[in-house]
């Protein structure tokens, strides 16, 4: 899961949790709030009524009623004021507030009632002020939905803001990855410093830069080492080879000596070939080759076959070629690819049947743009336990009749890796196949 998604998930979950808790607590909180509010109002009204009684006396309230009670409802019968003479004279209790049922046109309706007792002109009075619970609930229903909307709005808007901020903050991650991906080969040009104010990303970027620098240094050192090795080893070999050649020039050289010189020369040649091939592999792995070409594989195979034709004829090997489509490698190094196919075909000849062998080159494009190419040859099967080591240096499938240095397939592997070609080998009693998966060609202009 991506960090961005995780952060979004985290913030969404935490907000959801908080919103859930708030929404659960809301009815209770609103109810408490609404009741308090109602109480405060009732008390306010009580104070007003008391003040009025103080000012104008009780009688004006009670006049025209049954002598000792006045019950007054407002128009919608949401509220009432009930003033009574008498009642509890002793003791003068404190104000009480409670939810009480009241009969109203034959129905019992809940009211929030504030009851207060007071003494006026030596007479005890009881005053009740009530407000219907229905109207209270109306208010707090309204409050509740308003609060819920506000909550949802707050959650959504902060979520959006956070998403934007997360995106903005994490942008350097994409930039760093893009820059790393753009690195082609071991010696990329130095990258400009990353533009970010986040310390962590700068730290990461610095570390990557240092690492790239280290890789560059190591590759440079290896390059130098390869150059030194080739110089230091090839120069003495040169001396010997030239000396042998000079010695062979001599007139009236005994036949015996001549044969020995030629044999020594051959040994030296073998050393040279081994050394050159090892250096070639190192140079490929050291990325000293460019990939400037767009190679038509059919054409290239044609050249390789032409180069090896005399050996096919000599060993009476039939070559069948069936390539569908136009296999193309790009970007590629033509010379290296030539070597790759040359070595594979040369092996296919070398390890073929002694008589009437067959080689088949078959290939077909794949749906994903890649191309599968199979080089199959008849011949003695390669033991299964040898197959995984086939491409290693100096590993040689040795059946005693073929001479080689065991580096041909190691070169094949390094060239294949250099070109992102996947290569596998299978072998059974019918023969041996090398399967190459050529990656889709990339246009050079891109």
């Amino acid at each position, binding site marked *: 899961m991506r960090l961005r998604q995780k952060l979004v998930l985290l913030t969404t979950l935490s907000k959801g949790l908080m919103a859930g808790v708030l929404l659960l607590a809301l009815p209770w909180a609103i109810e408490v709030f609404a009741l308090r509010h109602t109480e405060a109002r009732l008390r306010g009204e009580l104070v007003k009524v008391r003040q009025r009684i103080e000012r104008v006396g009780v009688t004006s309230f009670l006049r025209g009623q049954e002598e000792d009670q006045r019950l007054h409802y407002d128009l919608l019968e949401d509220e009432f004021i009930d003033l009574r003479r008498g009642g509890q004279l002793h003791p003068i209790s404190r104000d009480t507030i409670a939810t009480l049922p009241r009969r109203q046109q034959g129905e019992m309706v809940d009211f929030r009632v504030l009851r207060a007792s007071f003494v006026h002109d030596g007479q005890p009075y009881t005053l009740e002020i009530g407000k219907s619970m229905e109207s209270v609930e109306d208010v707090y229903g309204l409050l509740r939905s308003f609060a819920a909307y506000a909550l949802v709005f707050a959650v959504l808007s902060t979520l959006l803001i956070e998403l934007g901020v997360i995106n903005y903050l994490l942008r350097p991650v994409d930039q760093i990855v893009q820059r790393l991906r753009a690195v082609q080969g071991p010696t990329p040009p130095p990258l400009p410093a990353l533009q970010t104010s986040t310390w962590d990303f700068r730290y990461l970027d610095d570390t990557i830069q240092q690492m790239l620098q280290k890789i560059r240094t190591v590759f440079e050192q290896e390059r130098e080492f390869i*150059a030194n090795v*080739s*110089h230091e080893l*090839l*120069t003495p*070999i*040169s*001396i*010997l*080879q*030239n*000396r042998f*050649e*000079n010695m*062979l*020039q001599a007139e009236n050289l005994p*036949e015996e000596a*001549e*044969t020995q010189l*030629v044999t020594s*020369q*051959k040994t*030296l*040649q073998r050393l*040279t*070939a*081994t050394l*050159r*091939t090892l*250096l*070639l592999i190192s*140079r490929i792995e050291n990325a*000293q*080759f*460019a990939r400037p070409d767009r190679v038509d594989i059919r054409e290239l195979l044609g050249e390789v076959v*032409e*180069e090896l*034709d*005399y*050996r096919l*004829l*000599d060993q009476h090997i039939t070559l069948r070629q069936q390539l569908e489509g136009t296999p193309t490698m790009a970007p590629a190094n033509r*010379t*290296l690819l030539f*070597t790759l196919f*040359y*070595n594979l075909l*040369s092996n296919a000849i*070398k390890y073929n049947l002694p008589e009437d062998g067959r080689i088949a080159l078959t290939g077909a494009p794949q749906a994903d743009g890649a191309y599968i190419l199979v080089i199959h040859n008849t011949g003695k099967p390669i033991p299964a336990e040898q197959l995984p080591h086939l491409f290693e240096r100096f590993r040689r499938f040795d059946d005693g009749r073929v*001479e*080689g*240095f065991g*580096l*041909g397939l190691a*070169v094949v592997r390094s060239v294949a890796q250099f070109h992102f070609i996947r290569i596998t080998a299978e072998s059974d009693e019918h023969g041996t196949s090398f399967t190459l998966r050529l990656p889709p060609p990339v246009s050079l202009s891109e």
Partner: protein
Amino acid sequence: MNVLIIEDDKALARELGLYLHNERFHCDFARTGREASEKLFVNEYDFVLLDLGLPDQDGLQLLAEARKERNQQASIIILSARGTVDDRIKGLDLGADDYLAKPYSLLELVSRMQAIVRRKHGVTQDTLSFGPFVLNVSDRTLRHGEQEVPLTKKEFDLLHYLLLHRHKVLTRLQLSEHIWGSMISDSDDRDSNFIDVHVKNIRKKLAPYDPGDWIETVRGVGYRIKTGPDA
């Protein structure tokens, strides 16, 4: 012909000088870039054989220098053990006439020098003959009278090389160096035994036209073109 051998390794320079001396070249030696500059300034050479790995100077730089001075006409052949991929391209870009990677066969070097001489002086011999056969270098054909003997590219090159050095026994190594020398990989197939296959094929192709064995096998050493009555 005057040759300047710029090579810091004494033993190598000696072997090279010896062979060239036998081939009737007059050799001069320089072991450092400075020494080479001085000699190039004073003397005129037909050939400059340049080792790129000099102790005091990059050989490629010297190459550019040599091209400017009085040795503009000299043919420059780079002999290098560095063998980096760029060296060959850079060297040829800077005006070298040829490039050989060490170790090379001295015969191949001399052959290339002779080829340069023939090219420069326009004395290309168009045809080489042995017995009843005529090898035409310009259209790359082998003829027996009016009939053309079909040869592959490699077979032609091999025969041509043997003819250029008639009287000499060429070892399989010298032949394979010439035939496959340009391949960057010394795969197992530089194995000089494959020369035998080529020679066998050439003999097979010549046989219907003439019964004589024109390519002589010198046991243990290599091959030689039999000197025909016309040689």
